[in-house]
Structure formats: structure tokens, C-alpha cells
């Protein structure tokens, strides 16, 4: 193991490590701690200049109630879910099919197709921006949930296909060969053999995609105009203007915006990290 396990070092070093760990954690998370503390700070504290000290009273509940009561944050949150969930389902569906197509069959140009999906995922959003905006206008889905959902499905399919294809290629191919020899149709092989085996990959992708799409700011910015359709990332910029002099409320709003992906991460941590670090442990 590298570095040397702390248990094998001197007593003094062990004590040092045990002190350094929580200290570094607090420093690292200072931004988060600050925003949590501020979300529970009263306006009078802010008015008296107590921005960073211990709040004189904790008013979490009042602040959250005020954010929900005086802004459209509830609508923004709902919009984020309305956009995120169908996008995940769509991208997973398309990429399971495409991933199987690329992993289970040998045909000329399959690496080229895979490369296209990967490369497309790395391009800067700006090279897509004007034509995609025009496309949604032409399709009549500009300024609607559907416009953003369709784009997210299409774009995220690139990464998801890469992921699914790698996962399926690692499965024991003998299963497929045996089923083919038995005369099982390709479609049934996909449904009855592949899909049950790729469940962990689907779980990993679903949590990853949840954070990617939830936190996306650019595409709703480009494809949505109406305030009542805005997801939370975009809504936060509205709140930033609205709560310019009450930072405690903006902090509470930011906390609300960050919470769903954070909860998703802590609940599905193993899947999330497995998805994110795909390939990091290979030689």
C-alpha cells in the first residue's frame, strides 16, 4: 500500500494524522460550512455585520420558509425534476441499445461510430449553440421542457453509449454465443441476457446523469426563455438578483439547489464513483 499505512508509523505521526484529518476537512469544506451557517443566519445578524461569526440565533426554518414564500424556487425545483428525469430515462434507453450494438457485433466502422459518440461528448457547447437553438425553434420546442429534454437525451447519449459499450464488452461473451447457438433471437438476447447484467452500469449512469443534467446551466439558458420553465440552476441567477441584500436567503436557496444531487451522491455513492472513475484503475 502507498503511502505506508499510518498504523505502521510512530505514535507521534499517528496523532498528527488524526489531528490533520479533521482540520484539513474543515478547511476544504469551508465554503460549504459558510453557506450552511449563512442559510441559518438572521437578517439582523447580517445588518450588524456579523457575516462570519457564530450566528446569535439560528433561523433555518424561517429562512427556508422565506425563500419558498417570496420566490419561485419551488417551481424551479420542480422544473429541474421535470427536465432531469425523462432525460436520464431517454439517454439510458438509447445508449443501452447502441452500446449493445457496438459491443456485441463486429462490423466495419464500429470503432469510428464509437469514436464519434465519444468525440461529440467532448466538444464545446458553443459549437452547437446556434444551430441547436435554431433546430428547437424549427421543431416548435424552443422555450419548452421538451426542447431541453431532447437535447440532453441526444447529447448525454454520447457518454452513456461509450460507458455501456465498455461495460457490455467486458461481459462474458460466451453467454451471447451460447444463446445464439440455441437460436435465441438477438432482440431476446438483449432483453433477457444483456439488460439484467448491465443493471449496475445503468445505476451508475443514472446517478451520474442526474448530477450532470441537474447541474447543467448552459442549455436551459439557451433553450428556455420563460421564467416559469426555468430549472433551479437558472433560477438561482434570478434569486441572486432578487436577494441581493439578503444573503442569508440566497444561501438558503443555493443550499436547496445543491441538495438533490448531493443527496443522490451520498445515497448511491458506490455507483456514482464506479461510474465516474471508469477506466481510472486500468493499466
Amino acid at each position, binding site marked *: *500500500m*502507498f503511502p505506508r499505512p499510518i*498504523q505502521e508509523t510512530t505514535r507521534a505521526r499517528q496523532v498528527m494524522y488524526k489531528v490533520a484529518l479533521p482540520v*484539513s*476537512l474543515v478547511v*476544504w*469544506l*469551508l*465554503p*460549504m460550512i*459558510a453557506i450552511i451557517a449563512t442559510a441559518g443566519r438572521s437578517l439582523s445578524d447580517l445588518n450588524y455585520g456579523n*457575516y*462570519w461569526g457564530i450566528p446569535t440565533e439560528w433561523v433555518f426554518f424561517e429562512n427556508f420558509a422565506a425563500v419558498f414564500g417570496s420566490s419561485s424556487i419551488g417551481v424551479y425545483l420542480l422544473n429541474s425534476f421535470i427536465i432531469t428525469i425523462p432525460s436520464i430515462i431517454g439517454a439510458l434507453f*438509447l445508449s443501452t*441499445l*447502441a452500446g449493445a*450494438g457496438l459491443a456485441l*457485433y*463486429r462490423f466495419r466502422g464500429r470503432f469510428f461510430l464509437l469514436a*464519434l459518440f465519444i*468525440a*461529440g461528448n*467532448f*466538444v*464545446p*457547447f*458553443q*459549437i452547437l*449553440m*446556434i*444551430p441547436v437553438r435554431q*433546430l428547437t425553434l424549427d421543431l416548435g420546442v424552443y422555450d419548452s421542457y421538451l426542447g431541453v429534454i431532447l437535447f440532453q437525451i*441526444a*447529447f448525454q*447519449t*454520447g457518454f452513456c453509449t461509450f460507458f455501456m459499450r465498455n461495460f457490455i*464488452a467486458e461481459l462474458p461473451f*460466451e453467454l451471447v454465443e*451460447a444463446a445464439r*447457438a*440455441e*437460436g435465441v433471437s*438477438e*432482440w431476446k438476447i438483449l432483453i433477457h441476457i444483456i439488460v439484467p447484467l448491465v443493471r449496475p452500469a445503468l445505476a451508475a449512469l443514472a446517478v451520474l446523469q442526474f448530477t450532470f443534467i441537474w*447541474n447543467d*446551466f*448552459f442549455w436551459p439558458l*439557451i433553450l428556455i426563455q420563460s421564467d416559469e420553465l426555468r430549472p433551479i440552476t437558472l433560477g*438561482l441567477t434570478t434569486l441572486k438578483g432578487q436577494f441581493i441584500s439578503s444573503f442569508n436567503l440566497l444561501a438558503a436557496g443555493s443550499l436547496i*439547489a445543491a441538495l438533490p444531487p*448531493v443527496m443522490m*451522491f*451520498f445515497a448511491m*455513492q458506490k455507483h456514482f*464513483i464506479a461510474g*465516474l*472513475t471508469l477506466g*481510472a*484503475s486500468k*493499466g
Partner: protein
Amino acid sequence: MADLPMMPAQRTRMTTSFFRKHKLLLMPLAFIAPAFAMFSLFVIYPIIQSIGLSFTQWQGIGPKTWVGLNNYRMLFNDAVFWTSLMNNVYWLVLFLLAPVFGLFVALFLNQTVFGIRLVKSLFFFPFVVSQIVVGIIFAWFYDPAFGLLATVLEPIGLDMPPILSDETLATFGIILAGLWPQTAYCMILYLTGLNSVNPEVIEAARLDGAKGWQLLVKIVLPQLRAATFIALVVTIIGALRSFDLVAVMTEGGPYNSSNVLAYYMYDNAIFRYRMGYASSIATVLFLIMNVYIVWFLMRLWNNEKGTR
């Protein structure tokens, strides 16, 4: 394959072998077609369209006029373009600190002590927070009147420069905010990599007297090549894509001093209706990114050879 009963298959295989040959060609096409159609419509074709648009002058509505390389000539003489490009270089170079910091944090946390799993997750979770939230927090840290930095510096007699409204400092303030989640991302890549480092090789090297820095550079790092590669790719792409933080922290200001190509492109298209010019900025950014995309694909291609 050999373990499964083959008897009933024998007959089926003979009668349908003709169809199967075609099936193995047609099925993948059918499986890939829906994904490919969506991806072509929303990603591949728009890239081609954008490149085409970069040779035109267009207000977003009305006719497009072909202007050849005019937009690119204008870019060449546009000071804001050069500032943005330079800022992208700063982003790129300074963002490379993320893999370095990430490696050191991972080495620090790669222990088995009580509660370490929770500590690792807490170190990682800035990555899960939206960049918009990160931008809001850091902008507030930097505030010269009541921000945390000002509050800490004031009692010791230091004056807090107004980072985000200072032409020389703004970009660096934003990059620092970006480094926070990016380091977390690299850390998790390295933690995963460290997990699969061969302990026997480490022990053998230790027996040979290698330790500390030498052991890290000569023995451990080569085994972390895969993690390093992915960390570099995601960091470089992240640096060139920087948009959210710029949009929420400075909107490119003051006087475009913190602009980057991605935001300058958006600014030209959305606020000034210069679609052709904006497309030429996007094309330049796309070409720069292609260097890294090709690098990634070539490496992938080398790994693919020899697999089924």
C-alpha cells in the same frame, strides 16, 4: 459456451444460418440507429452547421451573407478575442494544478483509519455541487466589503483587493473557484487508481530501499498512468469549457478582462446578434479542443487493438 447444452441448437443453427449472417449485420444497425439519429441531429450536424455559419454574416433572422474568411480576419484584430484566448490559456495551465493537488489529497486520504470513508466522500462532494452555487459562494468570499477574505485580512492590517472587479485578478479568482471541484474530481480518480496499485511491487521497492518521493515518482506514478490520463483529459476539457463560473461571477468583466472564448461567443450571439462572428469564435475553440479529443481517441484506439 462449452458448458451449455448444445444438442437442440444443432438443427436450428443449420436452418437459420443464412438469416443469422444477415441478422448479425442488421441487428447492430437497428440497435445503434436511434441513438445515432438523435446524436447526429443534435450534435454532429450542428457542428457542421456552426462551421458553415462562421463564414457568413447573420443576425439570427433574415438572410445569411457569405463573407468568406472575414470573421476570422476580424477575430485576428479583436483585442477581446485575444484577451479571452489568453484567459483560456491561464485556465488551461492553472487547471493542471487540479491533478497535482488531487494526487496529494488522495495520498493523504489513502489510509484505513476510523471514518475515512466518510472523510473521502466529504472531500469529494464539492464536485457534486452545481458550478452556479460554487460561483455564488466564492464571489461572496471575495467580496471586498464583507467577504470572508476581507474579514480575515482586515484585523491584520491588510487591504482586500476587490478581486472580481480587478482587471488583473478577476480571472484568477474565477479559476481558483473552479479548482475546488476539479481537485475533488481528480482526487477521486487517484483514490481509485491507488486502490489498484500492486502492493507487492511497492513492498519489493521498499525492500530495495526506495522510499518517499522516489518511491512515488518511480514506482507508484507509473502505475497510476490510467488515472493520470483521465484526470488530464477531464481537466483540460473542463478548463476550455469554462462558462458557468464566468457567467455567474463576472459575466466576463470588468471590461472583458475575465472573458473566455466560451463566454465571449455566447455574448456575441445572444446580446449582439452576431451569429457568424460568434460561430467563428466557437470554431476556434472547437479546433483547440480537437487536439485533446484526437489525443484521447488515439489512446483509446491503441487500447482497443487486441480486444475483441
